[in-house]
């Protein structure tokens, strides 16, 4: 069977992927105050990549994102754990989070919390795992 052309879906997918990426990052960042968070953000991000897999083929995507996602996951977990360990430096219980308000030049009054760092770890772990799984199965013939 001849390869059917995928022009419509590919062009829409490109736009969609951008939107999803943006949204995923938004979900992730605003997770502390609105629905979302590291896990959902990460998985949304992963689903964007899945969309890429679906519309393009696995080699193209892999060429463009040349990462070992298992390592991403590992680094994610490491970040999360090390964030927790950081609290040991201040002699507070493991995983104690801190937050504060800072005045940054562009954003104005901003709240920064170490929980966000923890969430980054979560997100990375989720992204890494989801993509590892998908790519492993996708690879297998």
């Amino acid at each position: 069977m001849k390869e059917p052309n995928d022009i419509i879906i590919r062009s829409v997918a490109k736009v969609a992927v951008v939107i999803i990426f943006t949204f995923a990052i938004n979900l992730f960042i605003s997770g502390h105050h609105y629905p979302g968070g590291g896990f959902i953000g990460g998985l949304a991000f992963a689903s964007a990549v899945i969309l890429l897999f679906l519309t393009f083929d696995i080699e193209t995507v892999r060429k463009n994102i040349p990462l070992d996602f298992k390592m991403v996951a590992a680094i994610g977990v490491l970040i999360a754990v090390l964030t927790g360990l950081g609290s040991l430096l201040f002699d507070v219980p493991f995983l104690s989070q801190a937050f504060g308000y800072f005045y940054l030049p562009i954003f104005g009054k901003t709240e920064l919390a170490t929980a966000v760092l923890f969430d980054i770890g979560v997100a990375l772990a989720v992204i890494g795992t989801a993509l590892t799984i998908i790519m492993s199965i996708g690879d297998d013939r």
Partner: protein
Amino acid sequence: MNNIVIFPIIIPVIFGMIMIIFRKRLKLQRYLSLISMAAVGIVTVYLMLQVKSEGIQTLHLGGWVAPFGVTMVVDMLAALLITTTSIVAFCCLLYAFRTIGTERENFYFYPLFLFLITGVIGSFMTGDVFNLFVCFEVMLVASYVLISLGGTKIQLRESIKYILINILSSFLFLVAIAFLYAMTGTLNFAHLSLRVAEVGQDGLMTTVAILFLIVFSLKAGLFLFFWLPGAYSAPPTAISAIFAALLTKVGIYAIVRMFTLVFYHEPEVTHLFIGILAAITMVLGAVGAVAFWDIKRILTYNVIVGVGFILAGVASFTTVGMTGALYYLIHDMIVKALIFLLGGTVIYLTGTSNLRDLSGLIRLHPQLGWMFFIAALSLSGIPPLSGFLGKLFISEGTFEAGYFWLGAIGLFTSLMVLYSIMKVFMNAFWGYTVIKEEEEQGTTAGLLLPIGILTALTIALGIGTQAIHEYVDLAVEVLMNPSFYIEAVLGLNPKP
């Protein structure tokens, strides 16, 4: 607050993650895994000493006091168990170096091994029922992967059964947690204990307790052990040894914790039920152990007998019985790992696990043979090895509680255990030596070290029980008086 408490959990995680990053450097992985296990061992011993001198150690993670945050609690029971865990894991790791093979090493054997330890230690230390679920899952998922690691036919086949049953038990666990939460509105063990004590353990609460018992029974292999023989005979020796030593013990620990701290108000119902299940487990396990002529099967059914025996002590719910259960628990962790390693070595040397094909190994491997003999005696609780005191106290506990049938079954099954394990010894090690030295498939070089350590341990624990009695007594004291635990966690009335 004591931040040391968290280290046994996170050291393996950190090292494991680093190993994932350096995937291709096997030598580094070996060193790192050894270092991390050693570090965990040191920390656990330190913690144990600290618990002894300063009382129960707690860590309110994130600084959120119980019951709102997750609290890690190291009472003496947990301290003893994590210490034993780290020792056993260390030995299995040493054994794995020689036997596991580069293929598995390449595919994250060491990280997964470490994560398994994290899960096990986490389960022992956590003071929160939902966190217990999470730690269980860490342990289980690690075991899922380890059991299927290698992807041989038998592994795949058995791991399907193993995973399916464990997924179901996880669901049940969640269901039980949901019920408990609906009724009590809290998750912290200590807080649960208080709240349950406040309203008493009515019919529904007892039902929920039994639901928890079923969940943990599935994990511990108490009566619902059908997944166990297959699952434990599938993976390579080092893995099945660590499974045999640790996985069921976590379930047992959970039963002990739940039924001494939270649901201790109706022992005539819940504990008697545990006793009945334990009796059935022992009988079925012993029956399975004597039935076969296959080393792996004999050993796995012996795991089941051990579970039943420990829980017989728990069922008695007397100080003596608990003491016995605790001694036997520690003993069982060590000796099960030992006997699995030994059995695995026999299989490794000869390439078969069928006893009818084995004969006369002792001529070429005397050390192995004698260590097997000692382990076999220890397994069936022959004095003065480590199983004896546990057996003695468990029997005494059941007698004191009036469950004479339970004690009798326990003692009788230990005879069957002896029969089954001596069958292995006599057939594999005695008899004419059929294999010539040149035909040997492998050597025991390097394998004897971990086995030797464990053998020495079982002897030392038997003769030198006095050295740990203070720890065990302390653990039992806490178990029999939930208020110590509650006070330590909730700080209602801080201990002097």
